[in-house]
């Protein structure tokens, strides 16, 4: 994405196709993986390559997609956020907590009007993101540790709010966006698409987006260029938490319930989507375009495995192996790029 701007130089490279491909490995490999997986499942199962199933896949990756938008910012800065799933969970629970529940739901909650419930939930996730941001930038705790702690804190708040119970009702706006559809297209897919698009536009066309890439590319140089690196890092942590929160609210509406540990698989899935898509774990390379490809790889894989007849326990292992391969490619692509730049 960012590297496409070297196109004029690429044009002069008469016999430079090999180095060019090498430097683009990070964008090409995920794409090939996607094509390969799709072809494989289409061949293995007649029910895979249908319009209906495409709709399924899109719906299945939507919540992950919303969460992954913010995570892309974080990983581009060479940081990590392990609290995304917990923050999604607690935000989803919070929005239900502030909504009037059926009488059989035994939670001492505080019913408020829908707009207020949504506002409070968003404030909650933003506040948690702010704590992450302060821990990382002001105190200097590595994001890996800081967000690990936040993962536990958010899980704790979730537990206190629902106390082992399940809530069902969320504000009507949320339930429409999470589980309704318009013209046959689920709203949740539309929301995910809009968030991904917005993330892409911010990263590509705004000054802030440029700063994110530069901080990720060389943090020291960003500082010596007079950028407020801490402010930028803090901002991406808050963005990540808010995206997670939005994903959490939509997810709760989509699943039809809000409960503890509902989002646990989303941590791995979101990180996988970003990394499999080719965004560099070392920062500065990749973007939302990569994340979208990563989401599709993951979606096709998860969905496709359901269409073929294999042991459901084996599926877990297969997913792990694919993730490992993607990580290897990610690290390797970085090295190839550095070599191409020698």
């Amino acid at each position, binding site marked *: 994405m960012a*590297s496409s701007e070297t196109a004029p130089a690429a044009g002069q490279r008469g016999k430079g196709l090999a180095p060019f491909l090498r430097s683009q490995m990070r964008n090409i490999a995920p794409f090939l993986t996607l094509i390969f997986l799709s072809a494989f499942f289409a061949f293995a199962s007649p029910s895979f390559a249908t319009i209906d199933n495409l709709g399924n896949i899109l719906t299945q990756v939507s919540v992950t997609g919303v969460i992954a938008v913010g995570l892309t910012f974080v990983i581009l800065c060479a940081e990590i956020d392990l609290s995304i799933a917990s923050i999604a969970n607690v935000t989803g629970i919070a929005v239900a907590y502030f909504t009037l529940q059926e009488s059989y739901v035994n939670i001492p909650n505080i019913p408020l009007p829908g707009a207020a419930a949504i506002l409070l939930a968003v404030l909650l996730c933003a506040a948690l993101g702010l704590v992450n941001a302060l821990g990382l930038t002001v105190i200097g705790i590595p994001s890996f540790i800081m967000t690990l702690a936040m993962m536990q804190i958010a899980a704790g708040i979730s537990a206190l709010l629902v106390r082992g119970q399940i809530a069902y009702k969320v504000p009507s706006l949320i339930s429409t966006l999470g589980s309704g559809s318009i013209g046959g297209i689920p709203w949740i897919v539309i929301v995910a698409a809009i968030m991904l698009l917005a993330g892409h536009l911010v990263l590509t066309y705004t*000054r802030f987006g440029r700063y994110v890439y530069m901080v990720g*590319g060389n943090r020291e140089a960003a500082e010596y260029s007079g*950028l407020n690196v801490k402010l930028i890092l803090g901002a991406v942590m808050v963005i990540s938490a808010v995206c997670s929160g939005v994903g959490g609210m939509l997810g709760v509406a989509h699943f039809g319930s809000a409960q503890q540990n509902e989002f646990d698989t989303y941590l791995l899935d979101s990180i996988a989507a970003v990394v499999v898509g080719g965004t560099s774990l070392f920062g500065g390379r990749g973007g939302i375009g990569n994340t979208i490809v990563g989401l599709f790889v993951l979606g096709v894989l998860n969905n496709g495995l359901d269409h073929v007849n294999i042991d459901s326990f084996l599926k877990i292992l297969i997913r792990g192996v694919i993730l490992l391969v993607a990580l290897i490619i990610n690290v390797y692509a970085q090295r190839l790029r550095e070599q191409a*730049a020698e």
Partner: protein
Amino acid sequence: MPEGRQPILELQGITKSFGGVEALRGVDFALLPGEIHGLVGENGAGKSTLMKIIAGVHTEFSGRFLIDGAETHFRSARDAHAAGIAMVHQELSVAPDLTVAENVFLGNQPTNALGLVQWRRMAREAGEQLSRFGIDVDPMSRLGDLPIGLQQLIEIARVLFSGARIVILDEPTSALSPPEVERLFTTLRRLREQGTAIVFISHFIEDILRVSDTVTVFRNGRKVTETASADTTKGALIEAMIGRGGEALEHSYSDDLILPRPSDSSVVLKVDQLSLTRSLQDVSFEARAGEVLGIYGFMGCGQQELSRILFGKLKPDAGTLIVEGKPKTFASTAAARRAGVALVPESRRAMLFHQEPVFKNISISILDRISSLLLKPAQEREIAKRQVEQLQIRPPVVGLDLGMLSGGNQQKVALAKWLTYPPKLLVLCEPTRGMDVGAKNDVINIVRDLRARGLAIIVLSTEPETVLSLADRILVLKRGAVVREFKNEPVSKDRLLEAA
């Protein structure tokens, strides 16, 4: 070929291009055992490229490559290493997170029968090697915590003592103080006696003439001459390098130079009693508009720390900064930039984004001036193009990734970042390091021009020439304290060295 010895290494008709651009065209190069071979040429002439071919970094090129008379083709730097070739790269390539000892033994740590690293032995041997080279440092300290000059010395030591038969030094002295350069030369001469072949690249032509047996001059990817050092002069070499008379470009600064009367224009920066543990003691001075203040001292005298404090990267333990009459404590580099302070640190790596194109490198520190929310790439390129032209950065393509420029051209980009919207106070650390004579002259002219436009400029350097060529007033820093101020009086290289 003198004495008819068999070359240890011979290159014939080497041509190397990066995409469409030819970096080397039909270069012949031979290296004899027991010779120190100096290499000079303008920025971008192709020196580093040729050396990287020898060291197995660049593996795609055309031409013949012979070692001990036998045709060879390296597939990687490891192959070259196995053939006894070791190189100190122009860009420092140490591992900052490892210890000094690990860096010295990088790749071949001593291990016991179980394959475990013998830490104690490694630390002891590293310590011995370094002290033989006059470096006194705890082998178990983290390398990244040491000053950049010391890191460079350690890297040089690693390569010199690696037992290689061919040693390549690409601008090794740029961060060293005169006594350290002297020690390096002594070691090189000793290695030469043992039959090691050494290639030595530098923009300090006196150094080249002093230490090398043969000098080769590159221009525009071609070898223009090769002569015995004894048969040539500095002027002749410069002329060969740039293709015209070069006497006017280089002064030797051995004679006295009279500094002008101190300016009485407005004080832009006042530094009062600045102290930092183990680095700076009660440093006080003023920098005035339209004046260049030079700060000279040996490596480790506290210059680096001082420059970091001025730009808000480090916090002093005590003391105040007063910028245009207002006391400031910079919470971040961004705050310093907003207050009108700019810094070009001595390390390019710390200042530049190697994987990003040149124009993004230039625009990064002024983005908020040209765009509030949305980027304006066309305007960024426009601004970058102007700077590239003004500083004569080669190749003049603003879309090229920065990592593809030669070292000296990268240095120019680092300066270009601050020139579009000049700050009130410009702090330059080693502004001409790694630049050829022509480029140095360009920088000198740019700095004078900025001074004429009323900027306050501080130049910090460990090279007396740099300070002498630029400064109107000179402070000498020694072990973190200002020990001497030269103003309105004669000054020379010797006087500076004496004071430090």
